[in-house]
């Protein structure tokens, strides 16, 4: 016997005229909204494992940096073409990019990439788990926060709401997106379906009728998103302008986010993460352009650059922001690596971003300038960066509700 939902789906066209459109259908129709309704989109990227900000955005103008890292520093920028591949790429005479991030330099020059330095969470923890938890909940030091900052940041819905309004690429929904507003996790757009049409229908019925309200709600969100994504799944996706995403999960995640945004299915917030930054040992190889950090940064930079190219003009609606739970010790350790530290850097990229500049106050790396005598000190709270993007870009008027107990001070990034 056809279920009620089955019936509705098959008479969808008739229903539109009748003016009694069911909610799920309204949501599906969101896809065909006029371009003038285009919403602003925030893409957040988490570098899990605590990236070494000092070797990512290199303070080559601070001599203390080279004293603290005799074996694993990134050399000062050079005009010598034979050495340039292993030297920092100068940004402003003081900071330089790790050479593995060369794909991002044009974006900085075109003023679409801004960097915030000496930024992070004020909580002193050096536990990956706690620091990620605090950064994702948006409440440093507070374990009891139930939901994540991205979930709270979703602007109040007016009318139709897309079931893929907030989407995370990966097997689990990150802490940052958990909360009362629907948000979904997917490994890939293609895999987001039950690969058996008959079973899919029956599962949908079962989950809609589940006794546990939490499972029922998750099931409802899931099957609404499945219905919406069906049309995209049938299309072959080719990145625009020859954009070339790197192999690996992170590049794939960004490509899927680009595809979702360009398909106009109503994405307002997206999340992707890239792990493997916990470089206690052999962070830098025989030369600065080789080794684990260089490899990972290469993948990271190429993915961000490909996303930019692929998105094209659409980047005027998008801001990408990156973060990592904390930085690493200013001094190198005995294993050509670095240990858990404090402040770090963040990247902000987008069509309307006031880029081409390194924001934030440099605290210095002399012993008495270091946090607890060992780490880069913090001069900007990560909530200042995210709060500004939530307010000035996404249009959420109350950043204080997104970051309870904190009043973000804007840097003028957008």
């Amino acid at each position, binding site marked *: 016997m056809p279920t009620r939902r089955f019936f509705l789906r098959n008479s969808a066209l008739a229903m539109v005229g009748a003016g009694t459109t069911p909610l799920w259908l309204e949501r599906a129709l969101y896809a065909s909204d006029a371009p003038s309704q285009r919403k602003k989109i925030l893409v957040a990227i988490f570098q899990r494992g605590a990236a070494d900000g000092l070797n990512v955005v290199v303070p080559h103008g601070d001599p203390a940096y080279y004293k603290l890292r005799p074996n694993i520093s990134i050399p000062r920028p050079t005009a010598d073409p034979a050495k340039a591949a292993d030297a920092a790429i100068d940004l402003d005479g003081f900071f330089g990019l790790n050479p593995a991030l060369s794909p991002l330099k044009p974006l900085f020059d075109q003023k679409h990439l801004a960097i915030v330095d000496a930024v992070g969470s004020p909580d002193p923890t050096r536990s990956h788990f706690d620091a990620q938890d605090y950064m994702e909940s948006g409440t440093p030091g507070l374990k009891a926060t139930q939901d994540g900052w991205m979930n709270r940041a979703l602007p109040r819905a007016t009318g139709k709401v897309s079931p893929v309004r907030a989407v995370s690429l990966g097997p689990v929904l990150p802490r940052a997106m958990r909360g009362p507003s629907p948000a979904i996790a997917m490994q890939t757009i293609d895999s987001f379906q039950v690969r058996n049409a008959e079973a899919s229908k029956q*599962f949908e019925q079962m989950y809609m009728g589940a006794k546990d309200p939490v499972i029922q709600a998750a099931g409802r969100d899931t099957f609404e998103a499945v219905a919406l994504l069906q049309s995209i799944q049938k299309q072959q996706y080719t990145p625009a302008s020859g954009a070339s995403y790197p192999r690996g999960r992170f590049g794939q995640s960004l490509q899927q986010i680009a595809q979702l945004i360009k398909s106009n299915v109503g994405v307002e917030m997206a999340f992707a993460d890239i792990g493997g930054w916990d470089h206690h040992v052999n962070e830098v190889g025989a030369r600065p352009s080789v080794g684990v950090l260089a490899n990972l940064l290469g993948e990271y930079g190429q993915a961000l650059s490909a996303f930019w190219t692929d998105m094209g003009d659409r980047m005027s609606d998008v801001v990408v922001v990156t973060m990592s739970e904390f930085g690493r010790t200013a001094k190198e350790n005995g294993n050509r690596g670095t240990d858990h530290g404090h402040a770090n850097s963040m990247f902000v990229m987008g069509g309307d971003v006031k880029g081409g500049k390194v924001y934030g106050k440099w605290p210095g790396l002399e012993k008495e300038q270091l946090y607890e005598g060992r780490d880069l000190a913090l001069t900007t709270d990560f909530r200042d960066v995210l709060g500004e993007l939530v307010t000035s870009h996404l249009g959420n008027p109350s950043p204080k509700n997104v970051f309870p107990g904190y009043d973000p001070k804007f840097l003028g990034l957008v």
Partner: protein
Amino acid sequence: MDGGYTQKDVTEAARCFTGWTILQPQRGGTFSFNKRVHDDGEKTVLGVTIPAGGGQSDGEKVLDIVARNPATARFISKKLAMRFVADEPPATLVDRMAETFKKTDGDLRAVMKTMLESKEFWSQGAYQSKLKSPLEMVASAVRAASGEIDYAFPLANQVGQLGQPLYRKQEPTGYSNSSKEWLNSGGLLARMNFAVQLADNKVPGVKVNPAQSAALGLGSPEFQKR
């Protein structure tokens, strides 16, 4: 962390364990204490002074200090209650379990007994209140379908697809014990797809008895609970 220790305690404890190592780890490995690389100075861990010259006993003392710290009693009791009762276990239950832990010098059997005999454990709210983790879901589905496993690697891959790649958790804390970690669209769809594949005998390395394997049962909301 909430355990009331500082970064100083971490580095002091690390000093106590200097010299603890493993002999030939690739061949099974046995414990070994290398006196030459041990920091033999005085240390203070969680307010307790460990005199200089203790050698291997420094690390053993740290284990005793940590085991008898009240925060440990609470921490372990809460973990157990989260595992067996609810994601947010009643504080009164955790307190009683921690009390038993302290009274019995950490006898986990006694702590479990306190939990199993509690009214909270047997309450209506605690019944099937937890969502199975991906590992529990895959293992219980294979068992429910009387699966015979030739090689387990594809099944382990499935556990990863469901969101819990085995031994690949980045943080040393391991996977969350909370149902929220697993309740999301991608994970639910992956569970349904696994149920369909398993029941159709399409997961390599495992054969199920078709008579006992209904995809709809294994993928149902009820089967995801424990």
